[in-house]
């Protein structure tokens, strides 16, 4: 009786295990029956807007060893050591490292080397494709493109931001093995193919990028500056044509050993770092005043309003002076257009104070200061804008001419573009589309309108004033005959630890052409030039060079005079 009961008990248990629990058990068991060798998915390319390849792959292979399946460790190690140029001991140690399933012997090995090893048909040695990332243009746009880590996943830049598209999905070769990893005889390896990554097409134009880099490299060398940066974008839809951060580094020879320097060099400062813009910010102040005037706000200063010629304004008891001494009739009896030409600070103090905090801050918000521009690039800074509630008149007056406010270069370029393109603020874009190897578009990133800044009329009035700045004012060195270049210079003193750093300046110029229908906008920033430091003398000529280069590349005709 007892025995019959026992028999029924365990037979029931067998039934439970084999008929009910089996799926769950099998799921776990399959894992131990097979060993995987990865098949690395081909990483997608990064190309410029015209298809020029900026990030590519070179076919290479990884070599793995499964110590338990290696039949003749000495012979295999000797062969591998010779083929790979690695010390014999290192390889031998890996081939005899029992207790681990797969050991990587070498990575990113060239195809010819792998073929020569494969010919010897060594037991326990396996190969898997493992492409190496390659950047055909080396240092070009390095902070934008970014790089991948040793395992091939994106670490910075577009490589990181679009990693999920670029990476693809790894496949694997599954082989049935015994407990310690020896392949079973007659077992067929299952092949799970890899899905290659998708390609990313940037808005960047390789030609413009190269041209801007050359120009900025020249000014970096000639001015002895600490850094030189430039953004070129299309004001009609805010697609970025070039982003230059110098000094830079070669993406094919990344200084991985020096983390601090790599972090500094690989940083896209145009997006991530802030600076005090200075006079280029007056574009925003002027735009606000013109728009308010057109709307009939009596507080706004009329276009024919003549500013006081005094060099000094006293706000809340503290004196704000113009950079110019106002002697010998300089900066006398200016209208708004002339104030822009001369970049006269007191005039913009007057405007900011006349509009008042509420109104002026509405425009600062419309121009997205203190907010992200929404670019498709990680690590964007929002800049520093005093909260409206804490702003005093002294602060408001200084914000009017670009002090007491910090912005990213990208924010400033976008604000300028949104002031002169008819008043449309789009989200800046670095990527146009994601497409597969067969050329089919998978995702398209279209221009996205974020909001209006000013009316078309204001925009057009402002633009003709800025054209005057280049024709007659401080921006003369950006003038190109017949191309209607417009713009605004900026020279800002640098702050260090809360104090003005003597002799340290940021020279900048934001310009665009043609003034009536802006197509190319460039912001040039030269950080700490030695000697001459005015935006008009250091930065404006660079913009002219870049514009001339664009004209040559795009074969743009002169406008009818």
């Amino acid at each position, binding site marked *: 009786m007892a025995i019959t009961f026992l028999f029924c008990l365990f*037979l029931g*248990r067998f039934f439970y*295990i084999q*008929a009910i629990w089996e799926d769950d058990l*099998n799921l776990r*068991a399959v894992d*131990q029956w097979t060993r995987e060798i990865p098949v690395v998915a081909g990483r997608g390319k990064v190309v410029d807007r015209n298809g020029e390849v900026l990030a590519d792959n070179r076919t290479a292979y990884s070599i793995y060893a499964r110590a338990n399946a290696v039949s003749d460790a000495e012979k295999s190690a000797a062969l591998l050591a010779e083929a790979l140029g690695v010390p014999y001991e290192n390889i031998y140690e890996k081939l005899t490292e029992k207790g681990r399933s797969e050991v990587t012997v070498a990575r990113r090995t060239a195809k010819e080397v792998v073929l020569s090893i494969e010919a010897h048909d060594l037991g326990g040695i396996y190969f898997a494709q493992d492409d190496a990332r390659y950047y055909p243009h080396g240092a070009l746009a390095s902070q934008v493109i970014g790089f991948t880590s040793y395992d091939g996943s994106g670490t910075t830049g577009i490589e990181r931001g679009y990693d999920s598209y670029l990476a693809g999905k790894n496949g694997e070769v599954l082989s049935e093995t015994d407990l310690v990893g020896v392949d079973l005889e007659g077992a067929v390896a299952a092949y799970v193919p890899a899905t290659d990554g998708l390609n990313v097409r940037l808005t960047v134009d390789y030609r413009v990028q190269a041209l801007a880099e050359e120009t900025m490299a020249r000014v970096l060398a000639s001015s002895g500056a600490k850094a030189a940066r430039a953004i070129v974008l299309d004001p009609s839809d805010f697609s970025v044509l070039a982003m230059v951060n110098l000094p830079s580094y070669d993406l094919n020879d990344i200084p991985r050993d020096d983390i601090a320097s790599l972090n500094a060099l690989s940083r896209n400062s145009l997006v991530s770092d802030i600076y005090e813009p200075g006079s280029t910010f007056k574009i925003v102040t002027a735009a606000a005043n013109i728009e308010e005037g057109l709307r009939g706000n009596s507080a706004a200063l009329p276009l024919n309003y003549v500013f006081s010629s005094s060099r000094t304004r006293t706000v809340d008891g503290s004196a704000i002076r113009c950079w110019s001494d106002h002697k010998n009739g300089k900066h006398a009896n200016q209208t708004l257009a002339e104030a822009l030409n001369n970049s006269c600070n007191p005039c913009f103090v007057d405007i900011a104070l006349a509009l008042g905090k509420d109104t002026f801050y509405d425009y600062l918000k419309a121009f997205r200061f203190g907010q992200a521009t929404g670019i498709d690039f990680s690590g964007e800074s929002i800049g520093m804008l005093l909260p409206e509630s804490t702003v005093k008149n002294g602060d408001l007056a200084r914000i009017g001419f670009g002090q007491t406010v910090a912005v990213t270069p990208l924010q400033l370029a976008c604000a300028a573009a949104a002031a002169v393109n008819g008043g449309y603020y789009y989200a800046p874009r670095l990527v146009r589309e994601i497409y597969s190897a067969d050329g089919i578009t998978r995702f398209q990133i279209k221009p996205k309108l974020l909001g209006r800044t000013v009316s078309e009329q204001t925009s057009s009035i402002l633009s003709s004033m800025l054209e005057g700045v280049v024709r007659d004012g401080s921006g003369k060195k950006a003038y190109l005959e017949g191309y209607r270049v417009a713009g605004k210079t900026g020279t800002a003193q640098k702050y260090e630890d809360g104090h003005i750093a003597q002799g340290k300046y940021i020279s900048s110029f934001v310009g665009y052409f043609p003034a009536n229908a802006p197509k190319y906008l460039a912001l040039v920033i030269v950080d700490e030039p030695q000697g001459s430091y005015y935006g008009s003398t250091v930065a404006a000529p660079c913009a002219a060079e870049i514009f001339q280069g664009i004209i040559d590349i795009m074969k743009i005709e002169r406008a009818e005079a």
Partner: protein
Amino acid sequence: MKRPNNPLRSKERAGKGDLLFLAAVILLAAYGVVCVYSASCYNAEVQYGDALYFFKKQLIGFLLGLAAMVGISFVSYEKFRRAGLSALLVSLVLLGLVFIPGVGRSNYGATRWIGVGPVTIQPSELAKYAFVLFTAGYFAKNPARMRRFSGILPVLGAGLSICVLIMLEPNMSVTMCVGALMIGMIFLGGASWKSLAAICIPVLFAVPALILAEPYRLQRLSAFMDPWASPREEGYQLIQSLYALGNGKLFGVGLFHSRQKYRFLPFSESDFILSVIGEETGFFGVLLLFLVIGFVVWRGFRIANRCENFYGYMLVCGIMLAFAVQSALNALVVSGCIPPTGLPLPLISAGNTSLIVTMAGMGIVYGVSRHNGQAKIHRIYK
């Protein structure tokens, strides 16, 4: 020479006996040889360079066992009656020899074997049957003594001394097996309920105490509760057994196609051969196997019941009990109902001592069945 009470005098007068029983036993043992080959071929190839290593050993055991079984079935079982005490003493001595350095052989942390040259034998396998021989003989001599507790004491003494020696090896599962055998035989011998209770209740307390005495038993016990808590140590064996059974599903992956035998499942050819059988033949294969085992057990007890001789009855019962209890315990271990212990599946698992001794025991049972038939015929003529 005339002994009217005993009709069994010469083999000439013995009948054909229970041929179905005999056939089922041979079938099981032969099936065991095939299963041992399937379960061990990969391991044997890797360890000994000969895929047939365990198969050959098992085949020799099968042939020797067959010879022993047939040979012993021709011996009148009455002759074992007097051998009981000496068999018990010999087996106790053998069990003791295990502990003499140089003679005892250790494996997997336990000293369970004695070695004579290339041959190793496992005395605990012999001790079970020695105990059966002794107990059957002792009870049959004077069945009345069973009713008094004091009359049972020699049997208890013999059983416990075997248990203690086996436990010291250590080998808990065989100890349990002998213990269960002892209680079963005392019960079948007709002991009073009081005596049985007096034996069983201390045993119930002894088991937890013994488990707590050895740390490794506690580890195994906790591993059995949740094998995945220590998948690489204590839980490993059970997990691998479950994987094998799970892979087998209802109908199995087919003979020789076990995946777990590729060194995943330790002791796949011996204590855990049932896992491989479960994997290769599925639930229905296991069911069929235990139907045959059950058939053997049923026929065995039927033979015992038909035996008019109390000694023969006790002898057959003891042998069949040992076989049935051990089969059941092995199945319980393999399916994870009780903590893993080292206990072969009789007739099937690799291990020559066990195979030969079990087959010899079955030979005794078959011998009894031959004389049963004779007894009937004799009775009719009387």
